[in-house]
């Protein structure tokens, strides 16, 4: 009893001491990301694991709706209100480095040579000078989703492996009503979704082109390869009539509703497709080009340490960064969110690379390219307008792609001037 009282008193004293000297004893760092159920849940698990390993550090997570995220982060960090560790889209990094809102990762803990050895090559975009500025936990790539029920119905036994097969399969899956209106499309199409990535990084390359030069500062798709790619893409709707732009409002909606045979989308779509009742789907690698070229687009969200983190908060933030880029964290992220591990050592394990669902995405990472966007929505708009001009105004591929290249080049010039 006496002992217990004593220990209670000591406990009380220590807690008072902790309160008074909380800055010395326990460090609290703040972490921000945007709200997406699975991401928040995965991060909660990671924080729990991290705090168990580092009892003197607590991590407070704050999240916002995606629509407000970029504005809130941009407003908060300069005001000194923001997080110590922040999640950013890879395309935003330049702005944050330039505005001195994030600091480089220490080279002794994150040696660039080791990172280049461990991570998938596209993470190299996060290096500037002798340091890495941010690192991802997970990456995303594209793949071809297909509706197995519609495949069976049309008597197609295997998903297409190249672009010619894609067209043939799509034709079998397309349905038209008496008035000639499409009621089921072979493949979804719409530059507003993921197709602009498919066009830029995959189709243009497969037709023998190189979409950008000069480290993504100069548009280079305004050539024969680009025209071929565009003709193929718009031809799906105009020539082969296996799709319509804006069919059922959004490509993913048409696929979810079972009105589309095939659909190109990112790995982040897996979670929401899993929840659709009555939809049976499979996934395969993006079809290869005429000469067998494969390509893919990959993007990712990174974590970075802000300039707000100083002293022991900085040390704690570094430890947290180490933890969220560990193999263990990547596996948790894959299991909970369905996003792909950023390191081959985790992604390319037999279990992951041959996984029915994740496999095609992970295999796609090996040959993926990452566009360095200056202003993704404006650059996407150039692609959307390019297709609209052909679809609605009947412009030729050559004229339309020339106009798109000029429009996108202006966006790049404005940004890099």
């Amino acid at each position, binding site marked *: 009893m006496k002992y217990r009282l004593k220990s209670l008193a000591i406990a009380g004293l220590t807690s008072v001491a902790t309160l008074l000297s909380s800055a010395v004893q326990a460090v609290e760092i703040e972490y921000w990301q945007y709200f997406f159920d699975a991401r928040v849940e995965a991060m909660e698990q990671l924080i729990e694991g991290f705090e168990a390993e580092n009892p003197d550090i607590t991590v407070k997570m704050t999240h916002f709706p995606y629509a407000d995220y*970029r*504005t809130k982060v*941009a*407003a908060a*960090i*300069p005001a000194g209100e923001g997080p110590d560790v922040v999640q950013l889209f890879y395309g935003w990094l330049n*702005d*944050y480095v*330039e*505005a001195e*809102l994030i600091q480089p990762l220490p080279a002794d803990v994150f040696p660039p040579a080791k990172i280049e050895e461990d991570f998938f090559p596209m993470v190299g975009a996060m290096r500037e000078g002798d340091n890495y500025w941010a690192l991802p936990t997970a990456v995303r790539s594209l793949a071809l989703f297909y509706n197995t029920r519609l495949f069976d119905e049309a008597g197609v036994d295997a998903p297409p492996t190249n672009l010619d097969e894609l067209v043939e399969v799509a034709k079998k899956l397309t349905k038209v*009503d*008496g*008035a*000639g*209106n*499409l*009621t089921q499309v072979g493949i979804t199409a*719409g530059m*507003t*979704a993921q197709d602009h990535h498919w066009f830029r990084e995959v189709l243009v390359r497969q037709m023998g082109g190189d979409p950008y030069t000069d480290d993504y500062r100069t548009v280079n798709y305004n050539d024969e390869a680009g025209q071929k790619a565009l003709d193929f893409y718009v031809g799906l709707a105009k020539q082969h009539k296996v799709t*319509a*732009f*804006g*069919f*059922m*409002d*959004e490509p993913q909606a048409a696929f979810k509703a079972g*009105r589309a045979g095939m659909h190109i989308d990112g790995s982040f779509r897996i979670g929401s497709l899993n929840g659709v009742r009555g939809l049976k789907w499979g996934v395969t690698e993006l079809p290869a080009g005429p000469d067998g070229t494969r390509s893919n687009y990959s993007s990712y969200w990174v974590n970075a340490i802000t300039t707000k983190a100083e002293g022991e908060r900085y040390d704690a933030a570094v430890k947290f960064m180490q933890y969220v880029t560990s193999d263990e964290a990547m596996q948790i992220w894959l299991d909970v969110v369905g996003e792909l591990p950023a390191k081959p050592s985790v992604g390319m394990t037999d279990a992951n690379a041959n996984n029915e669902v994740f496999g095609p995405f992970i295999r796609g990472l090996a040959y993926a390219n990452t566009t360095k966007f200056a*202003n993704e*929505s*404006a650059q996407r*708009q150039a692609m*959307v*307008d390019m297709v*609209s*001009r052909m*679809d*609605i*105004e009947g412009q030729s591929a050559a004229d339309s792609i020339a106009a798109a290249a000029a429009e996108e080049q202006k966006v790049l010039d*404005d940004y890099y001037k």
Partner: protein
Amino acid sequence: MTLYRDLTIRQKHIVWAWAFLAIPALFYGIIRFYPTGTAVLISFQNWNLLGSRTWAGLENYRELWNDPVFWKVFRNTFAYLLIGTPVSLVLSFIIAYHLDKLRFMHGFIRMLYFLPFMTSAVAMAWVWRWFYQGVPIGLFNNILASFGIAQIEFLNSTTNALPAVLAPAVWAGLGFQVIIFMAGLRAIPTSYYEAARIDGVGWWTILTQITLPLLKPTMVFIVVFSSIGFLRIFDHVFNMTTNNPGGPLNATKPLVLMIYDTAFNGFNMGYAAAQTVVLFTILLIVSLIQLRLLRSE
């Protein structure tokens, strides 16, 4: 304290008046005028919200002048105004004029007209967006298809998209304008109508010689009110075209949507602020014309 005591009663009144006026004055100063002034300032600067602001002089305005998208958007904005305002004015007057004469279920029908005005614009825009889709989901096109008529591209078109987006906006504002018109009609003294009827005047003469002239203040109010509304149209357009904000090839993009896009997708605050100043100027001119018209009454 003695300072206050030495004042005359009249001066004390003035002090109190200013004390009470200070609250709205402060409110307007801090909440309205300060941000407005800052916006004008930013329009002469370059700022991406993250870094520091740098002076740009008139560069943003020069860019705006040379931007073909801006002129497209400018035309769209005035198309919303020049189609939307007369159509909603005529429709709401016709409805109000007949509703005013109607006794049967008057309250219920009036409520039906007013209902869209109370509905959230976002929800309404999404429902209309669904109406406008193609076969197999869109309501209008499914009806057309069931009669074997080829479907119409409502939103995925450079010519149909703007009227299609405008229609629900007109419909939503109709209820409010009907109520205002009915109030205006009720305010006209019945003795005028009685006198006219004794003189044996027809309904057309009554309408054009009595009703419409006496409704002029009501009409000026509605025109100005709905003009400002159409010049600032945003939520209908944005929600009906979220995938491709502003419709195909900017067919439906109004000025406010361009400002939003420049500011919160492009993070080009200086350029967005310059657009805001232009919009502000347009609204100011419209409001000044309104004051002019009202004064002439």
